[in-house]
């Protein structure tokens, strides 16, 4: 029988893994929508509004899934991890509070106007609503990553009677790992949304949708991906160096280094064996890990044996890290290859389109793998050096947790399938929509400010 600790960890992992899939899309998809809306406002070309209209529906669906799975998260702290709030509630509480106050209400309220208000408000208000929803999702990411980064690299506090008290809020918010993690996650979101847009648009093209909209959306997304991926590699590298400085045990697990040594090779593949504290079947490039992490061929990397009993489970961190890197490389190749094709000619062959369809959810895999690296990599601590995960868990009956875990897992399973099916159904339905008619394009004449004048009088009815 599993104990309440393992069950609670599994439940938290299930909840956060399901939840993160949706915000990681919406954070960047909001900015994509804002860009589409701006292009429409400037050119007056209806194709941009077509793209907006399709993707705003995807946004609405994704956002709804993010909201409801997020509410579950806010209950988890109290239900399963009471020790967390008892020990660090003085810091975690206000940070979560700021997320609700500055982000949640903003995005939820303006989402209504963004989705249903186009004919009720002047165009510039609708554009502003789109902007504010994106600001909201990004602010939400800001606060939650502040808290997460503080749990990784806690500073700005003192212990009084075993309880954490804040001493310097600026230090807490801009803790050492925060800037790196924030940038890394935002770029990950940009890539996730870009590959989603490219993949679904490619699917529409394959289903015979020869309108302008899907091709233009695909092109935009592929160029964005091609631009973001090198930035992400740089950000990821800097994030790794920061982790090496502050959480050496995590890096040792990521690299599979057991003994502290100089000139450590980079393991492309290996099977870490935690029992015998060694690796099997190593495929390695000599001295490269040292070079990457210390910028010296003979730089020293501390091994896991220096942290015995205090380091994370090696296998999970080691493999997740390689999955993340592998998917990242695949993204780089795909985005650059397709961009090169697009720059030379304005069509794509079928097999390339299928390749993009295959990469639709590559962002999810990379994000989850990266998240596991950083979260499992923090174990056995919940807050590095301050609170162990095992000290925070609830003491309720394991049966209750098992019940809720099964409940959540079954709901999440059904919802994930429904979400994927609905996405592709929406794409197939969009194929049947007619192409933009010449009459619609008259609007273009008044550009760039056509849209500001248009719709300026809303057709709201008077309340009796």
């Amino acid at each position, binding site marked *: 029988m599993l104990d309440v600790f393992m069950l609670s960890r599994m439940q938290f992992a299930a909840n956060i893994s399901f939840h993160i899939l949706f915000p990681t899309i919406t954070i960047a998809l909001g900015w994509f929508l804002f860009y589409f809306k701006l292009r429409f406002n400037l050119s007056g070309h209806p194709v941009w509004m077509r793209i907006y209209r399709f993707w705003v529906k995807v946004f609405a669906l994704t956002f709804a899934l993010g*909201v409801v799975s997020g509410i579950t998260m806010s209950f988890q702290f109290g239900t399963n991890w009471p020790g967390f709030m008892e020990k660090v509630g003085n810091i975690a509480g206000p940070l979560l509070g700021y997320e609700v106050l500055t982000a949640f209400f903003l995005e939820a309220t303006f989402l*209504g106007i963004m989705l249903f*208000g186009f004919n009720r408000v002047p165009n510039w208000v609708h554009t502003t609503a789109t902007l504010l929803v994106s600001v909201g999702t990004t602010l939400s990411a800001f606060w939650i990553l502040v808290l997460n980064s503080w749990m990784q690299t806690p500073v700005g506090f003192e212990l009084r009677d075993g309880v954490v008290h804040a001493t310097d809020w600026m230090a807490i918010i801009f803790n050492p790992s925060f800037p790196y993690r924030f940038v890394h996650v935002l770029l990950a979101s940009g890539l996730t949304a870009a590959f989603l847009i490219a993949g679904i648009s490619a699917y529409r093209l394959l289903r015979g949708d020869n309108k302008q909209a899907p091709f233009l959306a695909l092109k935009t997304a592929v160029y964005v991906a091609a631009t973001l991926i090198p930035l992400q590699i740089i950000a990821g590298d800097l994030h790794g160096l920061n982790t090496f400085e502050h959480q050496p045990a995590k890096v040792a697990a990521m690299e599979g280094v057991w003994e502290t040594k100089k000139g450590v090779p980079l393991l492309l593949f290996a099977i870490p064996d935690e029992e015998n504290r060694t690796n099997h079947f190593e495929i390695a490039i000599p001295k490269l890990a040292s070079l990457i992490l210390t910028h010296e061929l003979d730089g020293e990397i501390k091994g896991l044996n220096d942290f015995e009993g205090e380091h994370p489970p090696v296998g999970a961190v080691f493999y997740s890290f390689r999955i993340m890197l592998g998917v990242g490389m695949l993204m780089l190749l795909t985005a650059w290859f397709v961009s090169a094709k697009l720059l030379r000619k304005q069509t794509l062959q079928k097999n390339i389109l299928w390749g993009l369809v295959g990469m639709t959810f590559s962002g999810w895999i990379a994000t989850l793998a990266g998240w596991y690296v950083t979260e499992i990599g923090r174990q056995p601590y919940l807050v590095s050096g301050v609170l162990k995960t095992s000290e925070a868990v609830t003491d309720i009956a394991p049966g209750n947790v098992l019940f809720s875990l099964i409940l959540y897992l079954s709901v999440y399973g059904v919802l994930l399938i429904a979400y994927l099916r609905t996405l592709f159904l929406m794409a197939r339905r969009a194929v049947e929509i007619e192409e933009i008619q010449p009459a619609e394009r008259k609007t273009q004449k008044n550009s760039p400010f056509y849209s500001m004048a248009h719709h300026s009088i809303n057709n709201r009815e008077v309340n009796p």
Partner: protein
Amino acid sequence: MIPDTYLPIIFAGLMALSVIVYAILDGYDLGVGILLPLDNDQHSDKMIASIGPFWDANETWLVLAVGLLLIAFPSAHNVILKELYIPSAIMLVGLILRGVAFDFRAKVAQTDKHRWNQVFKAGSIIASASQGYMLGCFVMGFESSSYAIAFSLLSALGVTCAYALIGSGWLILKTTEDLQLRAIAWAKLTGKISFIGILAVCIVNPLINPLVYERWISAPFIYFAAIIPIASFALLLAGHFILKRLPFEGDKGCWLPFFITLFLFVLCFSGLAFSFYPYVVPGQLTIFEAASAPESLRFILYGAVFVLPFILAYTMFSYRVFWGKTKDLNYY
């Protein structure tokens, strides 16, 4: 500078405010879900359209309420959620189901739409009933006697019915013609059940809950204790007579049922709040014992004081944008 001793009171007030705002706002949209007719597609489309732009923000008040409990009174948050582990998990599943059903139903094939309507209705009922059940458990101080469970079940029914009542009030306000007539009939029915529910709680609660009994008969609460039920029943009576005559000529007064129910919610909630103050966990933990460190409360308070006016302003703006009778929802 606010003295440390006032901070727990301020946060208890903020938390009470977000709970009542949540009950009213998400109450009406949960109520619309509870009432969703599965036999009339046009009606259900219209009903869901009436809450479409709002439900997301409405639900955020729950996150704020739970968040404030977590931030300001973490030990109470731990005790309460531990006691309510199973019902809160069930409530969350209800909220998840209705939240996603709202979006899925608009995007799937016609055959699946009916199924998502059922999910929306079931999710709304599950969420409302579990909230009522949890309220009952809270009032009974998390006892596990059969009395307490019976009371919690009564409370589950009461809250579900109250949400349906405010939901029908919302529909009378936002719809016309045959759907409005239907909503008036729903309001009459749920109004009667709410009357019985409030009466039952007023009688049962002091009888089985010594803490509440003592509070209700001691000054100064005895004055509130007298005023709240009288005012509530007066409102219910007024609602009853208005509903009998609705709809008025030119749809005048279509807002009355909603706002009468709103005041009823405020009255019942303040009755509860005064019954338990200063306890945050009845009989166990006061707000002063459970409060977080003052420096943390101050940090979030300054933010809240700055941000809340903005939240209220843009919430009002959103209601103004979607003012008037509901039209079909078009995604744009």
